[in-house]
């Protein structure tokens, strides 16, 4: 067990959840619940990997991955914003659609090696003891982007004029509409932003953090963890980033626990029987299910600070307007 390695890996894999989670936060703060994160991520992972392979240009791959997630999310926008259908049903279908498309177009990609997003040390900072190797050494460019992205997202939502409009649209769309804010346009926009970030999260897996295409094992349910993370994070990008890193470190820590024969001087059950580790690997998913169950209770949701109009289609002129 080496904490340096666990934390380093936690920051790397946590970046995946950071992008996907903050994307979902944007959509949900605008009032649209998008359960299709897993599908958008997988499509982004496949598209990025495939384009990077065929064009030998990883940056083009990254852009296509982002757009793939974004364009897929517009289907959810059309169904839930324009046709005002149930957001849960539409989001679930989006996961099926995205997963299906990714698996079909991803046939034959397994085992290939496209150009990847570069990893590097930050000169100077990498030399700081402990902190350097954990935060600033041998990380993918996307991990460093993640460090800035979460605070920027927080600033945007809480301190800018467009961010205030975003909050208003998710909290009370009728009030925003009567003040001349275009509710439909903003909701489409933030669903798209959420999709783009899910696509980016997918590319973070396939082109950076754990490169390769392993069909649906590529994302292995991290889209769902991202949705649970949003509830843990109480719709706050900074907390989502911390939560993402924590989940990442947890995943890596579980792997490392199997290594030593003795744990704190006692026989390590995971070393003796590696089947026990399956239960440990379940923890993030169990926590996610717990978060989703708790988060679906109205009273708890209110206390956690969920956007008041989350999941409610906006129809102009209905009730009180």
């Amino acid at each position, binding site marked *: 067990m080496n904490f340096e390695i666990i934390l380093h890996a936690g920051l790397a894999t946590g970046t995946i959840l950071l992008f996907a989670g903050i994307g979902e936060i944007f959509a949900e703060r605008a009032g649209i619940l998008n359960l299709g994160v897993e599908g958008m991520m997988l499509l982004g992972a496949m598209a990025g990997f495939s384009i990077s392979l065929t064009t030998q240009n990883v940056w083009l791959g990254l852009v296509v991955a982002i757009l793939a997630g974004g364009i897929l999310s517009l289907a959810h926008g059309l169904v839930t914003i324009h046709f005002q259908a149930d957001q849960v049903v539409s989001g679930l279908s989006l996961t099926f659609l995205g997963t299906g498309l990714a698996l079909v177009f991803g046939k034959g990609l397994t085992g290939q090696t496209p150009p990847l997003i570069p990893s590097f040390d930050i000169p100077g900072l990498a030399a700081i003891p402990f902190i350097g190797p954990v935060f600033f050494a041998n990380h993918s460019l996307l991990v460093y982007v993640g460090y800035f992205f979460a605070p920027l997202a927080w600033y945007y939502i809480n301190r800018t*004029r467009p961010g*205030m409009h975003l909050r208003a649209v998710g909290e009370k769309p009728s009030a925003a509409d009567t003040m*001349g*804010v275009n509710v439909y346009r903003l909701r489409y926009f933030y669903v798209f932003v959420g999709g783009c970030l899910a696509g980016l999260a997918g590319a973070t897996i396939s082109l950076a953090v754990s490169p390769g295409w392993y069909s649906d094992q590529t994302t292995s349910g991290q889209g769902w963890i991202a949705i649970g993370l949003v509830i843990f994070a109480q719709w706050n990008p900074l907390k989502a980033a911390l939560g993402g890193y924590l989940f990442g470190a947890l995943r890596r820590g579980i792997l490392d626990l199997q290594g030593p024969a003795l744990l704190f001087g006692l026989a390590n059950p995971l070393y003796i029987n590696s089947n026990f580790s399956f239960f440990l690997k379940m923890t993030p998913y169990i926590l996610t299910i717990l978060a989703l169950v708790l988060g679906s209770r109205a009273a708890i949701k209110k206390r956690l600070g969920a956007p008041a109009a989350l999941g409610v289609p906006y129809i102009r002129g209905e009730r009180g307007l």
Partner: protein
Amino acid sequence: MSNDNLLPSGLPRIESLEMRGIVKKFPGVLANDHVDFDVKAGEIHALLGENGAGKSTLMKILYGLYHPEEGGIYLNGRPITINSPTDSLNHGIGMIHQHFMLVDNLTVAENVALGLKSSREPRLDLDVVSARVRELADKYGLRVDPDTVISKMAVGERQRVEIVKALYRGAALLVLDEPTAVLTPQEVDDLFVIFRQMAADGHALIFISHKLDEIFALTDRVTVLRDGRVTGAVLTSETNKNKLANMMVGREVSLTRERPSVTPGKARLKLENVSAVNEDGQPVLININLVVRSGEIVGVAGVSGNGQRPLAEAIAGLQRVGNGRVLMDDQDVTNLAPAQMFDAGLAYIPEERMHDGVIKDFSVAENFILQDHVRPPFAKGIFLNFKQIAAHAQELINAFSIKTPSRETLVKNLSGGNIQKLILARELARQPRVIIAAQPTRGVDIGATEYIHAQLLKQRSAGLATLLISEDLDEVKALSDRIVVLFGGEIMGELSHEEATPEKLGLLMAGEREIEKMIYTFDKGR
């Protein structure tokens, strides 16, 4: 004012606004049928009509939320098109909606700045907005702190925020859609002072209401709508309440209620130190003590959301009572299930009639037997006796003159007034000993209101014990022998029919128990 054409906010006045020949159709309804309406600078023009008469539709057209099939809008004599709230704001038209259009977790300044570009785009310029809000608030005498979060404000304050919001946007014409619905009488008085000042300053105001007293207290002109058509346009000074009521309803209605003197009998319903909490664990009822006697109507007044609903539901068995006891005829009935309460002789008219009072996809006849469908004469074993059910329905339809195409009509196709009559008929037919009437006439037309009040008074004479829970002060005052006032889940005080003036009730409704006591002793000392 140095310049006659400018408002205190520094913006030009709207000299006149006209809506001509407005037609708006909804599936199956003609909501506005060639409606003409106009308002001038410096004038308060009332738009009067019952629920569904087309007032709100007309104003939503003016605010760009609906688009009319026919007709035009003219500003200072020139035609304008309004396709969205933004257009209407740009023309200087502001609207105070019936339900507050405020984002609860934003501050006053943030709410005001919504939809506007910031001077430091993309960053917010809330300090600039706050300064301007303070300036406007000073000019119009509106007490508002720009940095307070809306969720921490009282209802009266939120109303002032709505006005500031409209003024900030440069509203020269303000549409006020039932702005007094949730206010105490004192808050209404304060608000009217502000409205009069605004009119004097050159604003044009459209005041929507169905309360006749307010029309006479505030407005210069009245336009009355009925079934989507204009049935009268008169100067307020040249008309009276009865004439306006007739225009609203289309026939003679009585606005006064006959309360024959009845000597109350024994205590039927008793609440002893009843307390309850909601699902979040917040107290909603605190130490309620209440007695309702046979032949007596006890009114429960209060501003919406101060424990009225939990009180009704605690008695009806729908809200768990934490502490204390509920007694009916000295039997302990605390926390019995609703079915057991009905069998014990309780009748309940719930405030959410479509949600709790009827099953809207069931027929009229089926809704009449919601409680009794399991027992004779309506059922034998698992079989229903349709002949009995039909006869029972027909009898009640006739007795309570419920307007329905047939007894097989689905309840959702009835008007609000007729649904309320149906519920009343069903409950009274069960010959209860105690009735809880929660908001029995909310959203009900004047005609049906008159009927429902008459029925409640008739049952009072027959010895029924009635708990009347209503946010309509006039209703509570007209019917009740005693009035208790709820505030924050507590009873603030009790007044007899004679003592209950709007001033005293208003103070109790605002939670000012101590001041009430002072006035009390002052009155008695005199």
